[in-house]
């Protein structure tokens, strides 16, 4: 086949050569016919050739032409046969046919573009050339050369095999893994975006809702304001905010910055400092404080009881307010009572309970966990008190404790706090030797520390008596009618036993205050040796620093020799028996000079709450004075023993003098 191809190639080359030659010849003949053009038209012919040579050459050329023509004709015939011979046995190879037809650049006459079957369409005209040799019939036609690229032949050798394919799951290629991860990541991303979109939408919805709820009209606002939960919320949150506001210490203080020099605090010179004053326009106005008390559990809380407000009849007669040192503007709690509350105390054993003694004789119990109305109260019946209760005290221990209360008709009741329907026991104090009535009108009551049976009562006429709650060996329940603690010439307003402080036991000492402008210190007689005849006991000492009624007196719970008193001129006096028994160590005017009704020390004896008759509660800090020196108790013991000896000699002298006068008058 290769050979054949070569042959064809050769033939074609030959043909091309011949064709070129012929064309040259044609040009030459035209040159001959047009002699003047000769020298210009042909390069091969020399300009100065003889006409004979010209003729002979023309003859030669004719011969050659004939030869060529014959050859051409023959070749032409052969060529025209090729399409037919394609199917001849010699050309059995399929590829050669296509290759053959495509190899030759085919000359296509434009008008007969589709006639590919005659590959050389101009050829048939060539035999006419010799006849019209001298009039060459030039026709103009365009040719398009289609150069079709040969199709690549693919040969399969024996060693060429198809790629091995394995059945079953194919191990993923790196690319596949990459694709997979990418797809997963994209899916995740998409999900995340969707989620975000969703969230944003929700947010928007919410905002829209907020936007919608933004403006409340008056009706809606009123509805909210009237709701119980709002009341609760506002009550609590304002309290919290006020407490926060009352914090005077600035936590952001930077001490490294230059600070203004504070000119020496004058307050530190005077030894008691007013901490705060509790007053509430709504509740405290037009009322008087009847009693004050500190919470044992929460040292910042104090309670104050108030009498009725004559200006406002709609409000409850008696109230108890719970005040917080850190919340000055309003009370923490407000408790109501139907009658004036005359005395109040925290239950020592349950910090939530507050007890009040009222003018009507009822004992009421409030709970800070409950609302403002009492959770429990005693009935108004002959079983309990029917006269004002000015004094009461918790006695006993955590597991066995009672409230002992005394009314002005001389009735002493003891109560169980969780059962106020009925007193546990009652005791009527009667004094058979009393001038007109046998009643003992109790205004003050006091139990020595750790004592639950024997107690002392201060009365309206000024005498102080000892009484027993129960029958005891050698003494009966009720008043000890022989022992008179005589000294006061007016009603006793306060009575308190010495609390147990320091190493020495002073529990037999007690203080009383009275409207006779004095405070008196007494030494109680031992209850184990009751007298059988009238026995007048006089006071150890009388403190006469006040210029008005003395309304209350209280021992410091921390300092054995310290006590405080308040009087009708608005003076708050601090006495220290160890430094001076004649004048108070500190005497301060409290508030606007209104009478001070009650006072009470806080647990550590550092602060004193003072209830005034104008409804104010003042809290004083007594500073350094609250700390006893180590020898305080010993000094006090010495002073007390001195007082005792003085009293004995005094009574002796008094007796002698009275005898002397009696003798004289006689």
């Amino acid at each position, binding site marked *: 086949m290769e050979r054949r191809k070569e042959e064809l190639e050769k033939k074609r080359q030959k043909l091309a050569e011949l064709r070129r030659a012929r064309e040259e010849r044609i040009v030459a003949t035209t040159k001959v016919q047009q002699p003047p053009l000769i020298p210009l038209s042909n390069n091969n012919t020399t300009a100065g050739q003889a006409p004979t040579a010209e003729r002979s050459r023309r003859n030669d050329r004719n011969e050659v032409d004939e030869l060529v023509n014959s050859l051409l004709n023959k070749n032409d015939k052969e060529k025209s046969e090729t399409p037919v011979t394609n199917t001849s046995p010699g050309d059995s190879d399929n590829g050669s046919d296509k290759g053959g037809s495509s190899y030759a650049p085919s000359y296509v006459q434009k008008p007969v573009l589709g006639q590919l079957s005659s590959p050389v369409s101009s050829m048939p005209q060539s035999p006419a050339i010799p006849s019209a040799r001298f009039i060459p019939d030039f026709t103009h036609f365009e040719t398009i050369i289609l150069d079709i690229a040969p199709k690549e032949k693919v040969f399969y050798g024996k060693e060429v095999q198809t790629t091995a394919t394995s059945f079953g799951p194919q191990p993923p290629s790196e690319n596949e893994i990459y694709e997979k991860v990418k797809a997963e990541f994209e899916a995740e991303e998409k999900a995340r975006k969707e989620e975000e979109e969703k969230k944003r939408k929700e947010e928007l919805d919410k905002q829209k*809702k907020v936007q919608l709820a933004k403006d409340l009209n008056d009706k809606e606002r009123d509805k909210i304001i009237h709701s119980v939960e709002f009341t609760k919320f506002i009550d609590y949150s304002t309290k919290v905010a006020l407490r926060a506001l009352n914090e005077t210490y600035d936590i952001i203080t930077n001490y490294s910055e230059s600070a203004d020099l504070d000119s020496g605090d004058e307050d530190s010179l005077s030894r008691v400092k007013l901490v705060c004053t509790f007053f509430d326009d709504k509740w405290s106005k037009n009322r008087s404080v009847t009693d004050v008390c500190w919470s044992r559990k929460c040292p910042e809380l104090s309670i104050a009881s108030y009498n009725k407000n004559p200006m406002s009849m709609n409000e409850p007669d008696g109230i108890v307010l719970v005040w917080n040192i850190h919340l000055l503007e309003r009370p923490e709690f407000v408790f109501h009572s139907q009658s004036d509350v005359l005395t109040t105390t925290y239950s020592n054993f349950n910090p939530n309970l507050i007890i009040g003694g009222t003018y009507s004789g009822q004992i009421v119990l409030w709970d800070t966990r409950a609302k403002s109305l009492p959770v429990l109260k005693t009935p108004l019946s002959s079983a309990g008190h029917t006269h004002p209760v000015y004094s009461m005290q918790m006695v006993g221990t955590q597991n066995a404790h009672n409230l002992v209360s005394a009314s002005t008709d001389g009735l002493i009741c003891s109560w169980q706090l969780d059962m106020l329907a009925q007193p546990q026991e009652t005791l009527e104090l009667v004094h058979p030797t009393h001038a007109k009535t046998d009643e003992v009108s109790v205004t003050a009551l006091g139990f020595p520390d750790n004592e639950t049976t024997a107690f002392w009562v201060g009365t309206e006429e000024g005498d102080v008596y000892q009484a027993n709650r129960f029958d005891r060996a050698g003494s009966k329940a009720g008043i000890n009618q022989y022992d008179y603690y005589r000294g006061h010439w007016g009603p006793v307003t306060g009575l308190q036993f010495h609390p147990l402080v320091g190493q020495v036991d002073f529990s037999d000492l007690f203080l009383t205050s009275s409207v006779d402008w004095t405070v008196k210190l007494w030494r109680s007689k031992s209850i184990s040796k009751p007298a059988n005849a009238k026995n007048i006991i006089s006071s150890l000492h009388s403190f006469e620093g006040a210029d008005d009624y003395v309304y209350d007196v209280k021992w410091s719970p921390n300092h054995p020799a310290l006590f405080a008193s308040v009087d009708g001129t608005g003076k708050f006096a601090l006495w220290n028996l160890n430094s001076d028994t004649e004048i108070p160590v500190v005497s301060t005017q409290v508030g606007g000079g209104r009478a001070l009704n009650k006072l009470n020390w806080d647990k550590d004896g550092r602060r004193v709450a003072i209830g005034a008759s104008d409804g104010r509660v003042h809290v004083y800090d007594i500073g350094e004075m609250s700390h006893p020196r180590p020898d305080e108790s010993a000094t006090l013991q010495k002073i007390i023993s001195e007082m005792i000896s003085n009293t004995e000699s005094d009574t002796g002298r008094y007796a002698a003098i009275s005898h002397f006068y009696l003798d004289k008058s006689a």
Partner: protein
Amino acid sequence: MASLELEEILKPLIANPHVLGVLVANKEGSVIKTTLDAVITKLYADKLTKYLEMTQKMIQEIDEPDAPQKNELTFLRIRSKKHEIMISPDVTEHKYMLMVLQNPERKTESGKDRI
């Protein structure tokens, strides 16, 4: 509670010399009571309710998951150079909040008249 009582209860807060404003709103930011002007009120109510919600959420989220009692935001104080913002949220119903705007610069005289 009538709105007069509300005024009464807020009076001591407003009367405090350090307090610049008081705002009561529900948790959506709708104003129930304010002493600030309208623009500032809206701004504060808007921002603070969102802030409060975030804080409440945060407190709950940082709480130990198996704690016997759930933690809860009870009070929020924000100190800045110009203000102190105190927010008291509704601890029981989670419906309202009280905001007190305070001047953080406390001079000594406020302390003097108390102690």
